[in-house]
């Protein structure tokens, strides 16, 4: 994938692009060039301005300064339509699919054509593209029946269906299982070979090293560095993003393993399609340990966490906290036990995006003293509480009164951590706690988990990131199709064996 010096005509050039929101400069005079058949990585911490920059390129936001050039000709985009007409497509962090429509309808929407939908012709075209790029999907399948990996294929198909030559992919791997990522990379290589160019955003630096030719690093909206992948290393990229050296290794800390604090006995649950997702699952979590639950996502981890959080009533089985059985499917009972609940989807379940930072911080404590007394809420207590949270967890925000939706991904997670951990919990259940977080924020979350353990809490870490599991756990169990495939202490764990367990092979 070498770019010959002779044909160095940029397919895209962003020159001094500036984008302001009401009180933040999200992009400050950023330059970016993309050449044909090239994969450029865009790196930066949460809130560095990656998504915003790409939304400008995609015509979704108007730029406040700078220029956009396509094939060295200046253009102005007023809406995504203009970008699409110039062969640019963007696959967003959160998919833009209509769940109740079919694959074909999602592909066709917005296309020019006759008054009546010509589904036959569209299907032919779609199948041809599917064949060409090895992206096989049933055109008549409804989107909600597709797995996350398949939905992403559909997003790529949508782009190709519109004849896109330039694909912007905003954290495409954040939601994928490792095998799906491998598949995605194969697709991307096929695309590049057939003349496409790709801008690739990810917080996983190894992926960036694997797939990209060149990397551009943003920090606080400013472009701080550019490297070819051949001339850089992961540690260098990490420190460029964060602007400081990162700790090489976390301190695991001393802790003594004590009494059981959380016990699951023979849990069973179904997913929202009625299929058994957790099957006769039991484990014991003790004081002062991190129990890692490894597994490819979609093997019942979500349902397990929902049962532990009290969101879903187990079909069978019991949950004990500090030796006392808790009623299933009752969140307020779980809150009373003081369990720290860090949910998988911080936007959909963890936070109310339109409520303020302080309101989100008191979600669980607003019914009890000192915040609430005789049915009235004490504003001063709330402010003190929120201020304390913001300081202790160094949440970067414009104050406690702004809606949380103005915070970056990492800071959203810190709001949840603050809310859950400030009350010194005995049990911490964290589900995919670093998904979508940058290296700095990830390090912060990891250290917070370890600190909890050192202070004597039991931490249940559910994650599909094997590195994270190995880094933090004292003991590891592996989930596959709702069952536990095996258990091993972290000293004895070896990656190959765990990898086999994760794919359902027992040895």
């Amino acid at each position, binding site marked *: 994938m070498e770019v010959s010096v002779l044909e160095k005509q940029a397919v895209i050039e962003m020159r001094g692009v500036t984008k302001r*929101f009401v009180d933040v400069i999200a992009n400050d005079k950023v330059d970016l060039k993309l050449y044909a058949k090239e994969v450029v990585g865009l790196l930066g911490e949460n809130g560095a301005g990656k998504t915003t920059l790409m939304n400008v390129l995609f015509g*979704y936001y108007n730029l406040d300064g700078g220029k956009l050039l396509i094939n060295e000709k200046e253009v102005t985009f007023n809406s995504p339509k203009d970008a699409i007409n110039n062969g640019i497509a963007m696959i967003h*962090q959160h998919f833009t699919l209509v769940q109740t429509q079919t694959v074909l309808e999602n592909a066709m*929407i917005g296309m020019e054509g006759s*008054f*009546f939908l010509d589904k036959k012709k569209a299907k032919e075209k779609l199948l041809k593209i599917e064949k060409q790029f090895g992206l096989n999907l049933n055109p008549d399948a409804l989107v909600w029946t597709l797995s996350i990996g398949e939905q992403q294929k559909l997003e790529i198909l949508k782009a190709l269906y519109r004849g896109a030559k330039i694909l912007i992919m905003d954290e495409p791997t954040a939601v994928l299982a490792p095998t799906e990522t491998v598949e995605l990379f194969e697709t991307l290589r096929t695309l590049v070979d057939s003349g496409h160019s790709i801008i690739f955003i990810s917080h996983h630096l190894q992926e960036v090293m694997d797939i990209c030719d060149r990397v551009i690093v943003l920090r606080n909206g400013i472009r701080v560095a550019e490297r070819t992948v051949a001339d850089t290393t992961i540690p260098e990229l990490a420190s460029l993003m964060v602007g400081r050296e990162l700790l090489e290794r976390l301190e695991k800390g001393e802790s003594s393993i004590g009494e059981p604090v959380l016990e699951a006995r023979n849990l069973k649950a179904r997913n929202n399609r009625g299929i058994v997702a957790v099957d006769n699952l039991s484990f014991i979590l003790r004081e002062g340990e991190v129990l890692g639950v490894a597994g490819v996502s979609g093997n019942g981890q979500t349902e397990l966490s929902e049962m532990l959080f009290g969101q879903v009533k187990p079909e069978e089985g019991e949950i004990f906290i500090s030796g006392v059985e808790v009623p299933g499917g009752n969140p307020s009972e779980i809150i009373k036990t003081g369990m720290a609940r860090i949910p998988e989807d911080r936007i959909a379940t963890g936070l109310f*995006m339109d409520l303020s930072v302080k309101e989100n911080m008191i979600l669980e404590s607003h019914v009890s003293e000192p915040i609430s007394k005789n049915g009235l809420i004490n504003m001063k207590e709330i402010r003190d509480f929120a201020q304390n949270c913001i300081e202790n967890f160094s949440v970067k925000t414009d104050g406690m009164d702004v809606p949380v939706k*103005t915070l970056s991904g990492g800071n959203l997670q810190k709001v949840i951590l603050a809310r859950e951990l400030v009350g010194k919990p005995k049990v911490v259940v964290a589900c995919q706690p670093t998904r979508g977080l940058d290296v700095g924020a990830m390090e912060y979350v990891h250290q917070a988990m370890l600190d909890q353990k050192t202070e004597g809490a039991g931490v249940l870490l559910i994650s599909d990131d094997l590195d994270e599991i190995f880094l933090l756990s004292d003991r590891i169990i592996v989930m596959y199709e709702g069952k536990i495939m095996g258990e091993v202490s972290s000293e004895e764990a070896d990656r190959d064996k765990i990898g086999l367990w994760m794919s359902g092979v027992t040895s």
Partner: protein
Amino acid sequence: MMSEIFSVAFITGLIGATLRMSTPIILATLGEIITERSGVLNLGIEGTMLFGAALGFLTTLATGNLWLGVFVAALGGIALSLLMAVLAVYLGLSQHVSGLGITLFASGLAMFIYRLVVGSPIVPPVITPFTPVAIPLLSRIPILGGSFFTQYSLTYITWALIPLVSIFLFKTRAGLRVRTIGQNPFAADTVGVNVNLTRTLSLAAGGAFFGVAGAFLTLAHQNMFLIDVIGGRGWIAIAMTIFGNWNPLMGAVGALIFGFLDAFQLRMQTLGVDLPFHIFLMIPYLITILALISVSRKATVPAGLLKPYRREDKGG
């Protein structure tokens, strides 16, 4: 009395009345389905219908032309829906508040215009309303032909509109756009669909349906304008939209059932059953509530309903 209920005359009369009574509700339901499919709940429906009823009546009163009345009523419905679009789509105000505001405003405006033109005479003015049209041959089918095929032209048109709206929503490019902006406006925007414009056009289409639905009541069902001529039919159409799961065919079935109950209760009143007539008046509404309770739990609401769409919101 039982023998009267099971007489042929009673049954054919009931069928004919069912079709008449359901016509404005089917029309309004179709309009609301188009609007809600695009992600906008138009609670302005009741007032818009009254406005259409008044404009249609006054136009016909002045010109003697019934079809001109229907046309002007449609225009009036469109105008009010455009106002709704300004408030709920472009300014992004609460759809509930905007819609109720429009209903209050339009009801007042309808009365005001009517008074302005007619004054307040002791005997309200009347027009010569639409007369039922018997379709040759079909209306001669023994027993039921007469009641099915001797209807107002507007009723026939309404029946034709049920499949047409279905085809529009599910088989045309524009229909796919409408459905997509109602489910996921962000997705539509990213593929170049103008969300706010499409919502405005959907509102306008719905408004035309509401206007004509109202005019049916003053130009065909009755021959005069009364302040309570709509009688909550707009709200019933909202219920039927949910009952029909935002599907034109199912919505029309719901409207038909309501029309039937409405026709039935009228007949029971005239049969002189020894019960206060208010009880009968309640029946259709009561059954609607029961039907809603059982059906709407399974309903699949358009995911984008009630949500104004703005770009600078943190969408992605």
